[in-house]
């Protein structure tokens, strides 16, 4: 369970005629992770023809836009996909049809934009009306060109106002801003009837000027005019609703065909995904990738059953220098899925490294439960996780398990909603013997650090890093020193004095580490000595501080009891409803705040005291080629799962 899934590097040589079929077959097996590296054979160059990919990308872009308009509220489950090859001609025809459909759809959309603009102008006119009504001049002259003067009324982006004002000044025009609204300014432009340089329109266009039509009946009562404008806005709203309905009706006629288009695109996608890794020479196509070893036979059988022309499938074990490129198959257990997500926040295990997920799940639950042990509060966490299951996604199980762990330790501590009177402790209350609890936490820290160091050594041996496994951080000599130091400390604490063997082992391993460090320095001797001394001191201090770091496991356990006591003390000062409210609110406070802090502290201990010792997280995630669509009912699970 901790070991990675063994992988093989495969090289597939096929004929061009079989390429589409092969991409589908590879996608269906869900076990082929493409390797983009070019082959050693220089004759197998990059393919120049990307027409299929380009057509697909354009078609999918068009489909996505249409789907937003037409399939937005389509909640029918897509039918199971029947794999078939999508030929280029079919894809091209689909792209053309989608293009034509989008042209029509965008004209509907344009109509909506037009109505929005019209509505905006009506709103601006309504706003302008108030301003116009205060002016003591005959505004109807603004509507017409006079013999000598020309008028323009409209909007201009506020950002362009100053520049436009000056530019118009050069052309002999005056610009008068009379109102600011949002990012627009309402302006009146007045100038000679015959444009001085014939460039007025060019400047106005460059400045994004929008003309506001001056109503013919401006001299009517403002209230009357306002009613007209409001009626106009109501008409626009109706037209908008009608346009949306028209779009809806028009689109419903294409829904079925669009669903079929979606399926076609799903089927064409694997070939497009493979496009960057394909190499070829004449009719020969080369592609390479990584496949779980146990899926190899199934892959070959599928290809044999699918391809109509001969092909060559070669496989080999990953080379040592390729280790960083080999993808790691993630843990698929549903139970471990939320823990796997948390591990991935740190990184993906490098191929060959131990996958820490199962171990992390166990230690996380043990530590969370022991730091937040309470039967009632644990039950609340578990129930809340169940209740909010749809919202929490895969994390609901995490909440349930954490809650259950808390309940288990609650039984052992005899704590129910902070009260230790309701249930006898199966083991003991943390506050009854704090020193014992602190010793246990330290013991747990020693086990945790030892386990992490053993995993670090194993990982380095698995990666062939012998020197690192012996002398590196958390390697064999470090671990020997640490365990000997613990033995020494235990002897002293028991009053047995300093034992000889641990002393020899700790001194010897420390000297070996210092010697190794000395050999790897290239500085002058004094500087070297300084570095080695600091390095050795750092080794001693870091192990001591890392072990002491685990005291927080006991500290939070004690803290939990102390907080509960505080809540009950406050509740005892109140009576009746007040008392009950204090107990409920206090428990909620503890669950939310302390529960959150404990979860963060446990994560911190795992990331810094655990993962940082043995887990590089530099791996690649296994992302096999697959169909985006649901598989047909009764389809076999992928071979490697």
């Amino acid at each position, binding site marked *: 369970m901790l070991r990675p899934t063994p992988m093989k590097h495969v090289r597939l040589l096929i004929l061009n005629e079989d390429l589409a079929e092969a991409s589908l077959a590879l996608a269906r097996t869900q076990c082929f992770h493409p390797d983009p590296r070019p082959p050693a054979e220089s004759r197998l160059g990059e393919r120049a023809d990307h027409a299929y990919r380009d057509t697909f*990308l354009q078609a999918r872009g068009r489909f996505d836009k249409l789907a937003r308009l037409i399939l937005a509220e389509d909640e029918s489950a897509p039918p199971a996909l029947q794999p078939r090859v999508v030929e280029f001609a079919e894809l091209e025809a689909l792209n053309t049809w989608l293009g034509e459909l989008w042209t029509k759809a965008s004209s509907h959309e344009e109509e909506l934009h037009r109505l929005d603009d019209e509505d905006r102008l009506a709103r601006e006119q309504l706003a302008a009306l108030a301003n116009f009504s205060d002016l003591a001049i005959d505004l109807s002259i603004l509507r017409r060109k006079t013999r000598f003067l020309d008028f323009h009324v409209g909007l201009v982006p506020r*950002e362009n106002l100053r520049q436009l004002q000056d530019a118009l000044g*050069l052309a002999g025009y005056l610009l008068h801003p009379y109102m600011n609204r949002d990012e627009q300014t309402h302006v009146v432009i007045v100038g000679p009837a015959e444009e001085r340089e014939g460039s007025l329109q*060019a400047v106005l*266009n460059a400045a994004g000027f929008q003309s506001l039509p001056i109503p013919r009946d401006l001299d009517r009562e403002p209230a009357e005019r306002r009613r007209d404008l409001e009626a106009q806005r109501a008409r626009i709203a109706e037209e908008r609703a009608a346009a949306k309905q028209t779009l809806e009706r028009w689109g419903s006629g294409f829904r079925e065909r669009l669903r079929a288009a979606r399926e076609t695109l799903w089927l064409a996608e694997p070939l497009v995904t493979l496009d960057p890794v394909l190499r070829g020479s004449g009719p020969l196509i080369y592609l390479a990738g990584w496949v779980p070893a146990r899926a190899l036979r199934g892959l070959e059988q599928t290809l044999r059953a699918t391809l109509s022309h001969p092909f060559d499938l070669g496989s080999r074990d990953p080379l040592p220098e390729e280790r960083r490129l080999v993808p790691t198959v993630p843990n698929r257990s549903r139970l471990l899925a939320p823990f796997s997500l948390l591990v991935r926040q740190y990184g993906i295990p490098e191929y060959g490294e131990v996958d820490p997920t199962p171990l992390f799940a166990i230690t996380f639950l043990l530590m969370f439960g022991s730091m937040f042990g309470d039967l009632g509060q644990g039950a609340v966490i578990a129930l809340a996780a169940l209740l909010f299951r749809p919202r929490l996604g895969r994390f609901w199980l995490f909440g349930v398990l954490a809650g259950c762990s808390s309940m288990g330790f609650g039984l052992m501590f005899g704590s129910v909603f902070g009260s230790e009177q309701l249930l006898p402790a199966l083991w003991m209350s943390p506050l009854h013997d704090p020193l014992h609890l602190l010793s246990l936490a330290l013991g747990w820290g020693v086990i945790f650090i030892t386990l992490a160091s053993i995993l670090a050594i194993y990982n380095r041996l698995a990666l062939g890093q012998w020197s690192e496994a012996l002398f590196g951080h958390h390697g064999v000599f470090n671990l020997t020193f640490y365990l000997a130091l613990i033995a020494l400390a235990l002897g002293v604490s028991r009053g047995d004095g300093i034992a000889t063997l641990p002393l020899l082992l700790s001194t010897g391993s420390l000297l070996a580490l210092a010697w190794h460090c000395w050999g790897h320095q290239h500085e002058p001797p004094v500087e070297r000595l300084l570095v080695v001394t600091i390095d050795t001191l750092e080794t001693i201090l870091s192990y001591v501080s890392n072990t002491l770091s685990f005291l927080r496991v006991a500290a939070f356990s004690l803290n939990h009891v102390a907080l509960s006591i505080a809540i009950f003390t406050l509740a005892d000062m109140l009576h009746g409803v007040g008392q009950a409210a204090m107990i409920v609110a206090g428990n909620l406070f503890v669950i939310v705040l302390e529960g959150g802090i404990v979860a963060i502290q446990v994560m911190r201990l795992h990331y810094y005291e655990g993962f940082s010792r043995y887990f590089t997280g530099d791996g690649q995630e296994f992302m096999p080629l697959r169909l985006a669509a649901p598989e047909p009912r009764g389809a076999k699970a992928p071979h490697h799962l």
Partner: protein
Amino acid sequence: MSAHASDAYLDTRVSLMISRLLDADAIARLAQLDLPVLAQRLGLEALLDEQPSVRARSRAIEQSLIQLLLSELQVLIRPMRGAEHELLLAWGRKFALYNLKTLLRGKLHALDPQHIREQLFDLPELIRLPHQRLFGAENVEELLRLLEAGPYRQIARQAREVYAQRREPFALEAAIDQHYHISIAREAAACEGHHAAPLRTLIGILFDRIDLLWLLRFRFCYKLPPSETFYHLLPSPGLLHRKRLLQLAELGSLEQVLAALPGALQEPLADCTNLAEVQRSLDRLSARAIEQVLHRSPSAMARALAYLIRREQDLGALFALLQGRLLGLSQSVIESALDLAPPDCRWPRAA
């Protein structure tokens, strides 16, 4: 990081980075090297070996130089907050706007998607455009509408409105350029305290150069009327402020414009007879002024921006040199492009 600490950090960073800049002698020495030695000196051998054609090599070099510049921008931007952060980001967005123009030209001229893709620069997440979505747009309006929800909102909206009214590529690109520079001026104006005055000086240097070149180009090459020419210019916080631009835009010839320039600009440009000469003289002038900011400004922020501008000029010179070598151009042409020698071809006199 506190304001003082981040200033000290930025100052130190810029001081360290200045050693990477090339002076005229260094460029002259590099200009004497042939391509293999030059590539080795600049660490570009692998890049040149991997690419099959001259065009692909040139593209890879340009991409690599831009990435280098933007990686330095990311280092400088790290301790910044608020308006300072936004200003450097606004400056860096020019590379994203190069990509936007490429995409727009692709849509306007219905170019092959592969060809467009090859012309796009790979940019850091910080300023990258959503290329895949933009590729899916069927026309210019749709493309610009897609950009209206994000940091390019102002530029995209104004460009779309201008394009909707005029339907011409020049107006579209002019609107993009103008609003890019306006966004820089806006962000610089938002920087307060001891950064404000030095930044105004630096933006003044930049805008003075751009204004004079655009003024001469729009008025006398494109024959635009004064009002339209003025509208496309950028009121500078330096020498070419609003009033002066208004006066200059009304003048009828290059000579009249040069004669009406303020003293600090008039003297160095007095002998210029065409736009190309004006550009060369202006480049020298602004490079000197930027050097002054870089070495003497009390504002770490202004020094950081000045460094990026100078670095961009250097990388531009290196690109010109490498490009010249790749294309097998003569030494004299390359030296003239690097402003190491006067051009050996005659320019027609401007009207």
